[in-house]
């Protein structure tokens, strides 16, 4: 699925890097806790969050996430969007709740981030 399709499904508004709209995304992970994102996000995994400060972008940056979506119609802090622009991270926001956004993307075929593939992954027996 491309970021453009994701934007359409979530009726999302681009905050930066729309020129990357045709980049592909395979997995998604959703959380407001960056500690959990850091523990669970593997490769090719986009991120949905309600955390609107710059640490959400910093976390995405460390994990090379292909796309970041802010949910619940929360306008992210200015420094968060500036950081996203600086590092070239496609970033969008949607008025949908986390639950609804995830439900729509799952129904459209986006796969969950495999929790077993934890970074450094010695917990392969997780489900």
């Amino acid at each position, binding site marked *: 699925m491309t970021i453009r399709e994701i934007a359409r499904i979530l009726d999302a508004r681009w905050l930066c890097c729309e020129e990357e709209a045709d980049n592909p995304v395979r997995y998604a992970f959703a959380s407001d*806790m960056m*500690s959990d994102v850091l523990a669970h996000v593997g490769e090719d995994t986009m991120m949905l969050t309600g955390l609107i400060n710059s640490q959400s972008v910093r976390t995405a940056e460390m994990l090379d996430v292909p796309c970041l979506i802010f949910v619940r119609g929360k306008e992210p802090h200015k*420094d968060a969007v500036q950081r996203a622009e600086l590092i070239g991270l496609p970033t969008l926001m949607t008025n949908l709740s986390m639950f609804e956004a995830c439900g729509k993307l799952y129904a459209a075929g986006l796969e969950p981030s495999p929790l077993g593939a934890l*970074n450094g992954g010695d917990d392969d027996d997780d489900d």
Partner: protein
Amino acid sequence: MTMIKESFHVKQGDMTTAGDASARIKRQCKQLGIPASVVRRVSVGTYEAEINLVIHANGGRIDFAVEPEKITIRVVDDGPGIPDLEKAMTEGWSTASNEVRNLGFGAGMGLPNMKRNADAFDIKSEVGVGTDITMVFNI
């Protein structure tokens, strides 16, 4: 032969710049052509440590060294120290304040996540003296 050796100072309590040192370390690793999977583990481990310096310690220092076969990250602070290391290494155990949780951290995943990402992990901590963490990542 050491290819790169650099130290970064991290300020206490400043969440707007937390992550700067990790981002610079990540960029240098990429520029050296280190495999993406290794860069990712180094980035996550270093970022977790940097966040800890900002929220738990009085800031601190991150030493970054690249050798042909490994990357070493050492994180040193003179903060309050960790009274019970065994508990602190348990997933889900955290002493973080609500303020820190509101910033998206303090789920009790930091130290376990550092250990999981590194190929070798060592932590020494003394109450009232500080904490000294070394992570080694094989290239």
